[in-house]
């Protein structure tokens, strides 16, 4: 069974600086890491391999050349193989262009049974690439997957937290799932696997390797129907409520009680 895991390298959000006056985002001092949600996707793939005993896990990432580091980390965490999808032509891609490029890369990489994505990325925040990719590849998909119940010969059963409920869904292979952070606790790489991953070969493919599946007008900034026209960094919301000290806590609770009364909550 061939499993593809989609991975994105993202800035460490704790380190990104937002300039509220100038309305700019500065990621230069922020380190890069694997999108946290994607680690759950990778862990899901690795556990399916452990369960079935015969799966091959390939991590695929679209990004600049340095995204190879994110793929190395995936290998250290259990991926068998990795593919970097990188080309200057891909810069500025929105979710549609990204999904089309990833669809081409997944097709070009050979036969597959299952694609696993994280719920969303912490920088883009859209959660759209998984289901868009599923549509472009003609696959069934399940979103918000919090458990893989069973993996059969030609289908898998997953628990999908969707539609204000929890549903058991059966998807025929090939299929795509996007997983939530609840699905598992990603394992940490061992020292040995880290060392091995350093030497691992990361395959790379660019636009020229995907021309069979991809048109030049569908990639990058010009292939992206959605365009960011303006960025605003809104002021941090603050309220200047009174803070009652410990020795005035009783007064504070009375004031809170009054506020509750005013709102006709009781």
């Amino acid at each position, binding site marked *: 069974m061939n499993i593809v895991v989609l991975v994105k390298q993202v800035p460490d*959000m704790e380190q990104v600086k937002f300039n509220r006056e100038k309305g700019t985002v500065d990621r230069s001092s922020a380190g890069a890491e694997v999108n946290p949600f994607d680690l759950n996707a990778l862990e899901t793939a690795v556990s399916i391999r452990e369960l079935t005993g015969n799966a091959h896990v390939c991590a695929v990432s679209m990004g600049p050349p340095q995204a190879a580091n994110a793929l190395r980390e995936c290998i250290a965490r259990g991926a068998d193989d990795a593919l970097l999808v990188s080309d200057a032509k891909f810069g500025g891609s929105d979710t549609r262009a990204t999904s089309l490029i990833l669809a081409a890369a997944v097709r070009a990489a050979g036969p597959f049974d299952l694609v696993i994505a994280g719920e969303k990325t912490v920088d883009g925040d859209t959660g759209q690439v*998984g289901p868009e990719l599923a549509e472009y590849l003609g696959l069934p998909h399940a979103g918000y997957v919090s458990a893989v119940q069973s993996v059969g010969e030609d289908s898998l059963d997953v628990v999908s937290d969707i539609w204000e409920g929890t549903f058991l*869904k059966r998807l025929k292979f090939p299929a795509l799932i996007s997983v939530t952070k609840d699905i598992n606790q990603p394992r940490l790489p061992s020292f040995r696997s880290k060392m091995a991953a350093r030497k691992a070969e990361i395959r790379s493919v660019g636009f020229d390797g995907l021309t069979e599946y991809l048109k030049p007008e569908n990639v990058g900034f010009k292939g992206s129907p959605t365009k*960011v026209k303006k960025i605003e960094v*809104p002021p941090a919301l603050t309220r200047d409520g009174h803070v009652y000290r410990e020795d005035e806590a009783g007064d*504070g609770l009375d004031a809170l009680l009054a506020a509750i009364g005013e709102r006709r909550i*009781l």
Partner: protein
Amino acid sequence: MQKVGKGILVLAEQKHGKLHKVTYELLGKAAELSRKCGLPVWCAVAGPEELPVEELVFRGAQTVFFGADKRFDTPDELLLTRFFKQVVRDTEPGICLMGATSFGRSVAPRLAAALGTGLTADCTGLELDEDGRLVQIRPAFSENILAHIKTDTLPQMATVRYKEFPEAARDEGRKGEVVRVELPDPADRLAEVVSELKSQEADISDAEVIVAAGRGVKEAKDLGMIRELAELLGGQVGASRAIVDDGLIGRECQVGYSGSRVKPKLYIACGISGAPQHLAGMRESGYIAAINSDPSAPIFNIADIGICEDLYRAVPELIRKIRAAKDK
């Protein structure tokens, strides 16, 4: 103003014959956009025969495209995508809006891909520019920035956050047309919903009052007083990520960037320090009260009232005071 496309299409959401309220919010926004650009407001809905589609007319839809079939009584993305795609192909709207609920966020990207158009996720604002194009405003970078986005292709598609816009007013005097839509051929069953394991009893984003607990709560049994307070106020219990990760309380209670975004009338944060990830989920609450023993806790910066006191003393005392007030 120039008309872009032929209408504004709201893609409704329903579950077991009950319409999701985000649909009414979208109809309200669509009516507002319609007043500026002159395009009609339409609504596409698929669900069981007994679905009260006239409600959509009362809320402002001039035409409702109704796919009546019990197959829509399950969350089947493939099937619903086919239905919406057919309505969009037949009607050529300039704008398509869907709720950014879990199901909406799972269907809308498929539909956008099927239509070959762009999609903007999770919008919190929608405006029209001078050319009648849709300006879609959405938070990104873990809620730190607001991006203004325009779409080159048609329809201009967006998912819109629940509880962001007011519901359209209901008016039984409104007249509209309900058009039955023939369903596409039964899907080749690539996906099937085997069963509904659990239905969410109460959605925390619908709560008017939330009493939320954080790291200040040491043990699961101590959540009893948080529940008691929530019940007294007719509200629900919320939680920070920390105690959800520690297994003290279920994920459905988590408020924050990676949990639910809430906007209750009253939010009482008990023993929550106020990490940015938590604030992102509750900062728009009507009235925020914070109880925390640490005077430097960031939660106090966004609180309307702060009480710097150990929650183990303050919460039981507040419960006593509320009971006393109720007895009066």
